């Protein structure tokens, strides 16, 4: 089986040379540039791990290195995040038998080289927010480091095939994939910005002011990076939310963003006929992108009565014949080891099931577009005050207008501050980058005007009806 897409109206998939890996003894073809999880999925393998007690099969959920469902033993090393680990020729991949109580041990030595690094500004996360922050701190003439756990820069921009909304200031009219290329090339022009990809932050030691990360050279060989900095920008993004229903752990149930990663970054079909839950912007945009990849989305459903998506996004898929069913939700996903069908039903205005409204859908995937949770764990470690604000996606840090948190010298930008979109993330990156540079003693005189304009731009961007809730949420966290 080959689930790869070879023809696409917008994307070109530059696949590298052919490689071979083995999965539980079976040989699997892969292409250089793919990750282990992508190569397995492309070969039709959906079961990556098993739950420890009931041994239920699990497949990848997030595909961006945040969940733990794609953990596998690779070349003898346990608990490898296969979704962000590039394939190497003759890699040996094995399914782990449940997550043991004891720490698993590698069957070969792991090489770790400790290195100390000092920068003016350290930025965690190389998505739209982090890259913009890096450019601004770079312009201020400072020594800047940008860390990202993924092998690729650009965060979630690299899977956006659609032209962006917003204004010229936020690159409206350009596709996310092209904005990513632009920002990456801009960052690379700075000699004073160092990029660390495949570098995962694992801790922050407040007393010493040390940010600890390990960077993978290749599987089994790591640098232990010990960062100190005058200021930090945390742009760690967010993680997709789950939804609880019978069969929610079946392989084939995944975040809509995970489906995007497979389809648009790697050109691998996550399913042939999925159901999408959540008719907000993410759900309907992913439905459209699935159609571009030649996937027949069965329906997009949402329990509320009015789609939260921009009408232009929802009407785009309606005219293509993709049904949007409001006041509908999922009863269960079922199947033997993977999704083979799903039952949906209608609810009344009190969200109670309407008897007899069940419909059994012939689907092979369930994609969840039910919101995201900001990834605030690192900020908590750094001592930033965190508050639960549902309007912003969950636990988020308190912040000033110039995006400083209550932790000393720590700034935020993008989805980690509130779940919005890439346009706002870039603008927040601009603000946080300038603020962090100011704190670190950079030459920001010429940049302060830009920060002021970015703050005003955000105010205007958020003044529409779709931003009412977010604006209310922001009131609760503004210092």
């Amino acid at each position, binding site marked *: 089986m080959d689930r790869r897409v070879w023809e696409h109206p917008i994307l070109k998939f530059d696949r590298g040379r052919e490689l071979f890996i083995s999965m539980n003894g079976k040989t699997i073809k892969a292409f250089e540039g793919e990750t282990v999880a992508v190569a397995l999925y492309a070969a039709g393998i959906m079961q990556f791990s098993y739950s420890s007690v009931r041994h239920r099969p699990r497949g990848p959920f997030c595909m961006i290195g945040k969940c733990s469902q794609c953990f596998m033993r690779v070349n003898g090393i346990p608990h490898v995040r296969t979704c962000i680990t590039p394939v190497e020729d003759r890699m040996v991949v094995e399914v782990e038998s449940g997550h043991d109580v004891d720490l698993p041990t590698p069957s070969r030595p792991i090489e770790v080289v400790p290195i100390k690094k000092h920068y003016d500004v350290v930025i965690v996360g190389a998505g739209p927010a982090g890259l913009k922050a890096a450019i601004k701190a770079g312009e201020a003439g400072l020594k800047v480091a940008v860390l990202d756990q993924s092998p690729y820069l650009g965060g979630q921009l690299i899977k956006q095939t659609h032209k962006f909304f917003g*204004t010229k200031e936020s690159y409206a009219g350009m596709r996310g994939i092209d904005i990513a290329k632009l920002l990456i090339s801009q960052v690379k022009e700075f000699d004073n910005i160092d990029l660390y990809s495949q570098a995962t932050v694992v801790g922050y030691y407040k007393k010493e002011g040390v940010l600890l990360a390990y960077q993978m050279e290749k599987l089994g060989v790591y640098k232990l990076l010990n960062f100190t900095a005058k200021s930090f920008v945390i742009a760690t993004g967010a993680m997709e939310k789950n939804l609880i229903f019978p069969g929610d752990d079946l392989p084939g149930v995944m975040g809509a963003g995970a489906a995007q990663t497979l389809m648009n970054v790697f050109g691998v079909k996550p399913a042939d006929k999925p159901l999408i839950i959540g008719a907000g912007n993410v759900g309907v945009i992913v439905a459209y992108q699935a159609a571009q990849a030649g996937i027949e989305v069965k329906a997009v459903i949402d329990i509320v009565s009015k789609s939260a998506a921009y009408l*232009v996004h929802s009407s785009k898929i309606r005219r293509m014949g993709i049904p949007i069913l409001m006041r509908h939700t999922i009863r269960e996903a079922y199947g033997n080891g993977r999704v083979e069908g799903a039952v949906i039903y209608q609810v009344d205005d009190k969200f109670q099931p309407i008897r007899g409204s069940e419909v059994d859908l012939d689907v092979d995937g369930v994609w969840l577009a039910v919101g995201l949770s900001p990834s605030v764990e690192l900020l908590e470690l750094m001592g930033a005050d965190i508050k639960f604000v549902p309007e912003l996606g969950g636990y988020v840090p308190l912040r000033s207008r110039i995006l400083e948190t209550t932790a000393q010298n720590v700034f935020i930008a993008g989805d980690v501050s509130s779940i919005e979109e890439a346009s706002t993330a870039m603008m927040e990156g601009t603000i946080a980058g300038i603020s962090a540079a100011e704190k670190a003693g950079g030459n920001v005189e010429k940049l302060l005007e830009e920060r002021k304009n970015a703050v005003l731009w955000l105010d205007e961007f958020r003044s529409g009806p779709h931003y009412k809730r977010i604006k209310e949420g922001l009131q609760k966290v503004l210092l």
Partner: protein
Amino acid sequence: MSREEIKPQKTLESGYVTIEDLAKAGMIPPMEVLERKAVPIIDDIEHIPCTPCYDVCPTKAIIMPTMNDPPKVDWEKCTGCTLCAQACPGLAITIVNMAFGKNVLKRDGLALVSIPYELIPIPKKGDKVRVYDRGHSFLTEGEVYSVIKSPKFGTVLVNVLVPKEVALDVKFVEVIKDE
């Protein structure tokens, strides 16, 4: 159950826009204008922060006081150049030229509708296509008159010949495969 058997509601809340919704919002030009020149039909009646059509318009025919205002068209300033349809991130703009049959083909009764398209297969000149409305209801069969790929935005505009009566309803096409 298959997708065709699912009958979604035809409501604005579920993404279905009607000509009446658009007319109420002032998005449909007077008949006199439609009979005379090519004009954009913009399916955007919401307040969203989005300005590419406004930014790209060479004659400043799109009126948008703030980034959140829905676009309004000054029908006299508009030249029907199609740049807004190429730029629109929502693929929400079709260009309707009701006078095309009469003026260019010398066949009154035919309109040319330019539809932004980002799916495969991309229709080719001469292809027969199924033509659909805003809710994917079949309207008619049409013929692809020409196909233009926007050099700046990458979006393809498929120009389809359809009967004038349905021109305002046309929003989507699918190539009819040779049997």
